[in-house]
């Protein structure tokens, strides 16, 4: 579903990604882990076609970036630590707006489905500015899956959420994964990543330093694997 080869990204003289190779099969849930400054967000922004690679190739659902960016964007949903929704619109108006941007047919039905999925059906006519951070993040997930994308990218979705909101978000993320979508999530929360993901990739110094499936972790836990990858 996602194929990245020898990806390089430079910002002026600073090289953030140094020949990164990455591949994800359909339906996989990959947790992309790494310390601050490892290049996780930069990598996700390139996958989302929000940033151009300096070198290398990126292919999503057989479409290459940046040439076929519009086709990729139609198959991609993105959730970041920013909700990407408008405070002065209601939850329903926000989704209606994005439904128009994506040219979604039967938008009304789809919006109701999505609001039910993220548990905000009762608040559909309330302004987003009255929502808690957790509710806004759930609506952001609703926005990201509104057009039924094959791939969903989550960039630190738990940032700024309290324990209750994080638990609710766990449920929504599991639902998104159960729907058969390919998911790539960056996170600093190893416990949550271990609970949700089927594969763990450690990004360090601009390359994937280690990769393991859940089964591949064996008897050790993710923390041990993470520490070993960064030490190596």
């Amino acid at each position: 579903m996602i194929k990245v080869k020898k990806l390089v990204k430079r910002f002026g003289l600073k090289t953030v990604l140094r020949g990164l190779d990455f591949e994800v099969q359909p339906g996989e849930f990959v947790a992309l882990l790494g310390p601050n400054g490892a290049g996780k967000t930069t990598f996700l922004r390139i996958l989302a076609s929000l940033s151009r690679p300096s070198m290398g190739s990126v292919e999503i659902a057989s479409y290459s970036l940046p040439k076929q960016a519009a086709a990729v964007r139609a198959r991609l949903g993105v959730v970041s630590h920013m909700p990407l929704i408008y405070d002065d619109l209601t939850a329903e108006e926000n989704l209606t707006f994005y439904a128009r941007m994506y040219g979604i047919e039967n938008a009304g039905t789809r919006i109701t489905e999505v609001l039910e999925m993220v548990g905000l059906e009762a608040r559909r006519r309330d302004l987003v500015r009255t929502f808690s951070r957790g509710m806004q993040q759930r609506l952001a997930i609703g926005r990201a899956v509104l057009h039924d994308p094959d791939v969903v990218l989550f960039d630190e979705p738990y940032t700024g959420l309290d324990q209750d909101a994080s638990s609710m978000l766990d449920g929504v993320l599991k639902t998104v994964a159960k729907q058969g979508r390919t998911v790539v999530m960056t996170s600093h929360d190893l416990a949550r990543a271990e609970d949700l993901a089927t594969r763990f990739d450690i990004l360090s110094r601009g390359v994937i330093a280690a990769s393991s499936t859940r089964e591949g972790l064996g008897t050790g836990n993710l923390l041990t694997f993470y520490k070993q990858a960064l030490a190596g």
Partner: protein
Amino acid sequence: MAEQTITTTRTKAKSNYWKAIAAIAWKDLAAELRSRELISAMLVFSLLVILIFNFALELDITTRRTVTSGVLWSTFAFAGTLGLNRSMAVEKDRGCLDGLLLAPVDRSAIYFGKVISNLAFMLIVEAIVLPIYSVLYNVNLFQPGLLMVILLGSIGYTTVGTLLASMAVQTRTRDVMLPILLFPVVVPILIAAVKASGGYLTDAPMTDILPWLNLLIAYDVIFTAIAFMVFDYVVEE
């Protein structure tokens, strides 16, 4: 929380250029209707400027006619900058610009949607300012020719302003950056608008006004084309 069953019929994400433009304009107008942040700021600023000029320039009726176009366009230009800055800041602060850029439409649709909403805000403010100005300065501003100049000038101003605001909003000093970037580029349009407006107000012959009108139209067309071509590069990292 309701557990959703797997959707069997996948919704087709068809991009539609014109619908996307309309959606962005609708979204901006709907949000502004609720918050009234942008129009009220532009309006209060405009009214303060014309009031200050009214007391500062205690002029006879003939002189007032000659300075009116300058006062009017200074007011529109500065108030317009406030609106442009705020309009793009709303997108950037909540990360919504990324939300727009993620949509599977040609990115120029985002630009044209923002131009339409920015133009609408500017025209609303102008529609309120013009009658107040007419009363304060005892000048009839409701002439078809003058209104056409105001429309053409506003189109040119928002066309360039929206493009430059989307550049300025990505800098840390965006509030300062927009006027610095914008005013040198809109000098031709402000001069043409002031001259054409002044021509209508002083009953100058059409042969004197026409070159300025042509300049306004040419500027609008050229900058719309330039913005259409470069917007994608301006907003991408």
